[in-house]
C-alpha cells in the first residue's frame, strides 16, 4: 500500500463498500436485507433516495428474487449489483448457477456469516465456501480497504469480454461490515475511467429475439460447462492484470491471486483467507521477532483456485497449516482439501494440516495462531492429526 492518506476517512465498512458500489454505477441494485449485510444495502438505498446514485433500487421478496431480477437486468444489458450472506446466499443457490451458466457478469458482496442450523448470525465463511462450485469468481478481503478496492476490480474482471463471469467479493460479516476504520474512498471520476460502462455482446432485444440459458441436450451440455471452466481458468491472468492496473491508478496492491507475508524464507507457512489474515500477520511478526521462520500465504482468490501460483509460492515450505472458517461436513474443509489436491500431482510432499477455526464467530487470537504453529512443528514429525476443529470445547460435548 502507498503511504497516501489524502482522502482517508473513518467510516463503517458497509458504508465504504456501498460507496465503492456507487462508484461502479450499477443500473439496478436488487437486494433483500439480512444481517450482517443490511448496512450495505441501507446505505445504497439512501444514496439512491438522495439522488447521489442514479440506479434503480429494487426491494424484493427474497434473495431468490433479488438475484433473479438481476438475471433479467444483466441479460437486457444493464450492470447489476446485489449483496447477501448466509441463508440468503443459500436461498440464491439455484440462481447462482443460472447467472454463471448464462455468463452474466453480476457482482455481489457476500458479508460472510455462519449458516444454520444452529441459528447463528456471527462471522464464518461457510456460506461462500459452500458455494464454491457454482461458477462465480470469489475474492476474499483482509480489511475494509481491500473490500472497497476488490468491488471495483471485480466488475472489471467479470465484465471482461474474455471472461464474462459473475463475481463474489467476500468480506467477513461484522468484522469488516460493521468495523469503523480509516479507508480511502474511491474517487468517482477515477473509478469511471477504470471501469467504463458495461459493454455486453448480446442483449435481450425484441427486435432480435434470443434465448439466454437455452436447453442443451447431452450432445452439447458438456461443452457449455467446459466454456465456464475455461473462463474461470482465463480469469486468473485477468485478476492479476486488473490488480496491477488498479495499483497504477489508485496506488494500492494486495497481490492478485494471492499474497505472501514473510514467505520467502519461511519454513512453517500458514495459509488462510479473509480478515483473520490480519491477526495472523501480527502473530507472524511476534514469532519472527523470536527468530521463528514463520510465514503467511494469504489467498485472495479462492475461485478460480490458483493451483500453479500456490505450487510456486509454497514449494519451499517444510510444513503448511491451513486456517479456515468453514468445514466440509463429511471431509475436512474447503481450502485444505483443495490445497492438498493441487499438490498431489506435483513433486511437493510437504505435510499439510488443516484447522476449522472461528466457526460461528468464535474469536481466533494470536495465542491460537501460536498454538497452530506449535502443532505444525509437530506435524513435521508426523505427530499431529491431519485435520481438527480448533479449540474444540470437549467439556460441553
Amino acid at each position, binding site marked *: 500500500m502507498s503511504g497516501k492518506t489524502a482522502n482517508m476517512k473513518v467510516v463503517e465498512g458497509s458504508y465504504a463498500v456501498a460507496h465503492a458500489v456507487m462508484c461502479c454505477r450499477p443500473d439496478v441494485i436488487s437486494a433483500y436485507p439480512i444481517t450482517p449485510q443490511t448496512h450495505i444495502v441501507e446505505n445504497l438505498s439512501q444514496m439512491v433516495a438522495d439522488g447521489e446514485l442514479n440506479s434503480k433500487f429494487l426491494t424484493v421478496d427474497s434473495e431468490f428474487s433479488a438475484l433473479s431480477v438481476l438475471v433479467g437486468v444483466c441479460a437486457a444489458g444493464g450492470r447489476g449489483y446485489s449483496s447477501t450472506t448466509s441463508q440468503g446466499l443459500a436461498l440464491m443457490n439455484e440462481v447462482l448457477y443460472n447467472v454463471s*451458466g448464462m455468463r452474466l457478469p453480476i457482482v455481489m458482496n457476500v458479508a460472510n456469516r455462519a449458516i444454520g442450523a444452529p441459528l447463528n448470525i456471527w462471522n464464518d465463511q461457510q456460506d461462500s465456501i459452500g458455494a464454491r462450485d457454482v461458477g462465480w469468481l470469489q475474492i476474499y478481503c483482509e480489511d475494509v480497504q481491500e473490500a472497497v478496492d476488490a468491488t471495483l476490480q471485480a466488475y472489471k474482471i467479470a465484465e471482461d469480454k474474455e471472461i464474462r463471469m459473475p463475481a463474489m467479493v467476500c468480506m467477513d460479516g461484522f468484522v469488516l461490515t460493521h468495523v469503523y476504520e480509516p479507508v480511502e474512498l474511491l474517487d468517482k471520476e477515477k473509478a469511471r475511467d477504470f471501469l467504463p460502462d458495461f459493454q455486453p455482446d*448480446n442483449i435481450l432485444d425484441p427486435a*432480435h*429475439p434470443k*434465448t*439466454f440459458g*437455452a436447453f442443451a441436450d447431452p450432445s452439447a451440455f458438456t461443452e457449455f460447462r467446459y*466454456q465456464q471452466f475455461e473462463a474461470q481458468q482465463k480469469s486468473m491472468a485477468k485478476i492479476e492484470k486488473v490488480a496491477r492496473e488498479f495499483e497504477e491508478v489508485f496506488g494500492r496492491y494486495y497481490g492478485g491471486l494471492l499474497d505472501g507475508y514473510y514467505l520467502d524464507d519461511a519454513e512453517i507457512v500458514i495459509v488462510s483467507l479473509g480478515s483473520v489474515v490480519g491477526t495472523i500477520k501480527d502473530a507472524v511478526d511476534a514469532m519472527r521477532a523470536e527468530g521463528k521462520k514463520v510465514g503467511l500465504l494469504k489467498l485472495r482468490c479462492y475461485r478460480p483456485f490458483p493451483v500453479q501460483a500456490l505450487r510456486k509460492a509454497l514449494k519451499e515450505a517444510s510444513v503448511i497449516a491451513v486456517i479456515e472458517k468453514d468445514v466440509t461436513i463429511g471431509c475436512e474443509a474447503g481450502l485444505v482439501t483443495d490445497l492438498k489436491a493441487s499438490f498431489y500431482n506435483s513433486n511437493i510432499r510437504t505435510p499439510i494440516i488443516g484447522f476449522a477455526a472461528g466457526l460461528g464467530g468464535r474469536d481466533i487470537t494470536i495465542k491460537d495462531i501460536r498454538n497452530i504453529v506449535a502443532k505444525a512443528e509437530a506435524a513435521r514429525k508426523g505427530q499431529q492429526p491431519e485435520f481438527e476443529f480448533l479449540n474444540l470445547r470437549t467439556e460441553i460435548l
Partner: protein
Amino acid sequence: MAIKAGSLVDACSTRITKTGAWRTFVPQFDHDKCIKCSLCEIYCPEGCIHQVDGLFVPDLDYCKGCSVCANECPRMAITMVLEEK
C-alpha cells in the same frame, strides 16, 4: 454448429435442434381405424401431430413418444412400439 457462451441461441432454435432424440416408444397409426376425430392432434403436448394428405401423422423430429395420443384415441388406432435406433 458452434455453441455460444451463456447457452445463447437465436429465436426459433428448435427448427435446428430436433428435440425428439430422447424417444423410447414411437406411435404407429392405423389409418384404416382412424375416424379423423383430431383428438390426437388436439391432445399432443408437443403439437407435432398434423394432417398430411388427409392422414394424421406425427412429426418424429419432435415427438417424445409420450403416448398421450395413443391413450386418447377412441378407436385404439395408435399403438406405441419400442423404437430401436
